[in-house]
């Protein structure tokens, strides 16, 4: 784990963050710094607003023939529900340990179906090492809109991990767990920049979790993942 960034370090990276082109690891480091530095956060917001304004200078180019009708044909089709969340930056930005685990467990299920024994063995070993008893995943949705994904893992260390992407105003959100055996529990904050962010937190017992909700700064439920029953 690299040491936290100083303001001087962070400021070198703020333009790339504001422009949305920072690499995943650096992006996570800078966002971590912004969480405790209002000056750098304010500077980033101003830089991003300026950069966004510049997009209005984009040269206008005629799209290929049939473009408009192709777009409208897509809009006429109900949005597909399966995960269409953006793989690249979301996954890169995710907390490294959690992604490793998620990747391992998800890979277990995927490869189990494909019957590749060598890979299955590796994932089984990984799960055994983690003391894994259950992994559940569900889409974070609001109406028909797909905002991201929630994971709940039960093992030696049990944790909840949330990844959000796209079209949510920047800010600090809260991740709440609905439980079958008690009141809802706020487990972590989720900082979103340019509509993207991820957060994970170790929790005690995940088997009673029935849903994962993301609340906006005013406390309103923005989206919810209804978790399947534990195995």
């Amino acid at each position, binding site marked *: 784990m690299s040491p936290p960034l100083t303001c001087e370090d962070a*400021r*070198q990276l*703020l*333009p*790339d963050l*504001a*422009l*949305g*082109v*920072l*690499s995943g690891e650096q992006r996570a480091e800078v966002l971590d710094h912004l969480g405790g530095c209002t000056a750098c956060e304010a500077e980033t917001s*101003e*830089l991003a*607003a*300026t*950069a*966004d*304004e*510049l*997009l*209005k*200078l*984009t*040269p*206008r*180019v*005629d*799209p*290929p023939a049939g*473009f*408009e009708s*192709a*777009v*409208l044909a*897509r*809009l*006429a089709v109900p*949005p597909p529900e399966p995960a269409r969340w*953006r*793989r*690249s*930056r979301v996954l890169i930005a995710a907390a490294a340990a959690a992604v490793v685990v998620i990747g391992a467990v998800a890979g277990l299920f995927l490869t189990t179906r494909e019957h590749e024994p060598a890979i299955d063995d590796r994932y089984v070993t990984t799960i055994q090492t983690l003391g894994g008893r259950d992994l559940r995943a569900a889409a974070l949705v609001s109406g*028909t*809109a797909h905002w991201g994904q929630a994971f709940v893992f039960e093992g030696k260390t049990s944790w909840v991990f949330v990844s959000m992407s*796209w*079209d*949510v*105003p920047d800010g600090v959100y809260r991740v709440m767990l609905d439980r079958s055996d008690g009141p809802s529990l706020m487990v972590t904050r989720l900082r979103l920049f*340019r509509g993207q962010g991820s957060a994970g937190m170790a929790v005690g017992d995940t088997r009673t979790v029935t849903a994962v909700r993301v609340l906006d700064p005013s406390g309103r439920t923005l989206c919810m993942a209804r978790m399947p029953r534990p195995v």
Partner: protein
Amino acid sequence: MHAADDDALLGAMAAGDQEAAARFVRRHQRQVYGLAFSVTGDGATAEDVAQEAFTRAWRHAASFDPRRASATTWLLTITRNLAIDAVRVRRSDPADPAALAALLGAADVPGPAELAEAGTDRRTLIEALSRLPVEQRRALVLATIGGRTSEEVSAAEGIPLGTAKTRIRAALHRLRIDLAQPLIDEVDGASRGVEEGR
């Protein structure tokens, strides 16, 4: 007036109005495709990106907040993020700097229809950009409309990475101050100005 029309269209789109969506697409398709092409440098990829941008706008119209950004800025930000992802994921080469420069050159002399459409907003931006030192301007255009990282700007311009970062940052700061000034003047002078761009 234009911005208010966009807000109304997005409001109608959030309610599922496909006719509003058609008008929204017609109004913005050239700019969305132009940005996608500026970043990706590839017609087919740009078309995919532009289509996806409108699809996202349609799906998420309800989340658009006119207090945070104009509809144009919102849509172009969506487009730019998608285009950057497309370049990264598909590992296609980003747009050629010379082509970008030529595109920007074309943007410097918008036609009468574009001027009427974009009004003072666009002219103010062009003027502010033109006041930057040319090397800062190039770096900033590559990084914004071109969707390049600092490393890519460094390579494209043949300058050290630190220099590329400094140029982009200095240009962004200077532009921010420059663009803020007219608003302050107008607020001081009359109540007219700020609303004009809305």
